[in-house]
């Protein structure tokens, strides 16, 4: 495939009268304020290595200390308990691989069947080292089955990983209850929660939760990508998963980069200062969009729970009889950007493991359409989408015509 053709493809695609971006799960801009916070650190400040003994280094170190603390505060943690990483993927891997080095005897890792692939794949990759993955099923709303969790715990259980909110269908998981069950059974079983999709959406108090590891994400709160965090409970000495010179951060050698840290910290400031406001805003848009689509378009099913059991930013519906990739493309041509759990968008041509885990038939999963809402989305965009998507769905269904599914 020539790059030239992508250009031509974009020309054929054209632009709609309006752009409504809802694909925040897969990519995001940063806030202007976040950008402004980063700017001086690219160009004039904090470019020193915070581990070097000179003014420029100390200036970085000072800034690093202050900003990191802001981020740590957002999960009620101490700075020393927050490791900066390059991505949530890396955070999840450090937690998974790290625990296998902390305790070499136990070999079983339990994960919910709807975990992010960076957790599931991280565990599966340890198969050669004798690590076994067991998945805990979820309800039709994606809620992990705590009874089965309890049953599966044994003296061979090394770790349990349960995300705080599912990134695809917005299920808020009973993490607190799960931790209690696990720790009641055996204090030595590690508990990790991937809170990437929950961060800034629901209150997270990692100290109070008594969780061992927690993954948080900058990009999910409209901070920059290429920086994320891993909370590590006091007293746990995790090792990094790759090696380098020691610098200020230890779990990911050479990760500290002031511009991205500045952006992350600013995003935290915005998201958490306006926590209630932002989440009320997205919740309102969420319900308007989700129920609006269900009202105006026939054969629409909601994926995941509703009301306060659902993340305030998550809209995921299946348009029956529509294939998702065609759907994202047709809606893209109308200026609406979202993603689908359709097999056709996946490398392995399998539908989203999350939708199948909640019992969606493949043909339901194929028609799924994931939209997320952030503080940057507006009611106007939702209105436009409610006007436009019925036409999109109609056209896709018209192509399907008489094919029976």
């Amino acid at each position, binding site marked *: 495939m020539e790059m030239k053709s992508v250009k031509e*493809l974009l020309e054929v695609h054209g632009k709609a009268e309006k752009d409504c971006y809802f694909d925040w799960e897969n990519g995001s801009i940063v806030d202007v304020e976040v950008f402004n916070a980063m700017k001086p650190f690219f160009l004039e400040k904090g470019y020193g290595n915070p581990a070097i003994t000179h003014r420029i280094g100390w200036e970085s170190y000072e800034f690093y200390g202050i900003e990191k603390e802001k981020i740590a505060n957002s999960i009620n943690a101490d700075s020393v308990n927050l490791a900066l990483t390059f991505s949530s993927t890396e955070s999840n891997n450090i937690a998974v691989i790290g625990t296998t080095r902390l305790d070499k005897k136990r070999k079983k890792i339990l994960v919910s069947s709807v975990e992010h692939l960076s957790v599931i794949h991280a565990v599966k990759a340890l198969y050669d080292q004798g690590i076994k993955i067991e998945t805990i099923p979820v309800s039709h709303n994606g809620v992990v089955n705590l009874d089965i969790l309890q049953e599966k715990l044994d003296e061979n259980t090394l770790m349990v990983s349960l995300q705080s909110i599912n990134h695809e269908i917005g299920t808020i998981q009973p993490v607190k209850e799960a931790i209690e069950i696990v720790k009641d059974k055996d204090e030595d079983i590690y508990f990790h929660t991937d809170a990437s999709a929950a961060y800034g959406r629901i209150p997270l108090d990692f100290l109070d939760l008594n969780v061992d590891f927690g993954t948080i994400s900058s990009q999910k709160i409209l901070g920059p990508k290429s920086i994320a965090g891993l909370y590590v409970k006091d007293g746990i000495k995790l090792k990094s998963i790759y090696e380098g010179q020691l610098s200020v951060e230890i779990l990911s050698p050479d990760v500290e980069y002031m511009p991205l840290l500045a952006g992350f910290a600013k995003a935290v400031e915005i998201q958490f200062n306006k926590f209630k406001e932002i989440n009320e805003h997205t919740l309102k848009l969420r319900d308007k969009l989700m129920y609006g689509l269900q009202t105006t378009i026939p054969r629409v099913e909601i994926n995941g729970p509703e009301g306060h059991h659902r993340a305030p930013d998550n809209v995921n519906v299946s348009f029956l009889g529509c294939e998702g990739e065609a759907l994202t493309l047709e809606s893209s041509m109308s200026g609406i950007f979202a993603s689908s759990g359709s097999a056709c968008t*996946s490398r392995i041509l399998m539908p989203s493991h999350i939708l199948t885990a909640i*019992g969606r038939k*493949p043909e339901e999963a194929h028609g799924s359409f994931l939209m997320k809402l952030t503080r940057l989305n507006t009611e106007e965009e939702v209105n436009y989408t409610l006007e436009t998507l019925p036409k999109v769905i109609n056209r896709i269904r018209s*192509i399907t*015509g008489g094919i029976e599914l």
Partner: protein
Amino acid sequence: MSSRIPLPYAPRVLELFRNPQNLGHMKDATVSATAGSPACGDIIIIYLKINDETESVIKSSFESYGCASNIASASQLTILIGKLTLKEAWEITWKQVSDKLGKLPKIKTHCGSLAVGGLRRAIRKYYSEVNKKKPDWLPEEITKDEKHALEEEALAEKMKKKYVL
């Protein structure tokens, strides 16, 4: 988000996705055939109206439940069919379809092959159900492109077992 791939279609795919040629159910079709399965998210129906005397296509059309390249492949195929004889139509390969579409992304080549599989099925059906004089050029064994379609259907069955609770 699941395990993604970039799908940089050639512009032709998008053109045909936007304005599909020969789309729609054909009431007066001589024969029609389906390939693919809803479980895979890929189904094509090919409709053919056939001149029994010349054994050639009068018109063809399609319906599709599938991704953009599935739709474009089916449409492109019907354009290629035009008014060919059935013998000529039989010889259309997925590679021809894919080439006409500016080469499908590797992972999407099955879309082209699904359409061709559907067409060949329709032709076989014509010779087994409508015009029962099976011609010499029609092979007994199923061809590679037909096999692709079958494989996909089999995969769908497997997935159904695995995933439907």
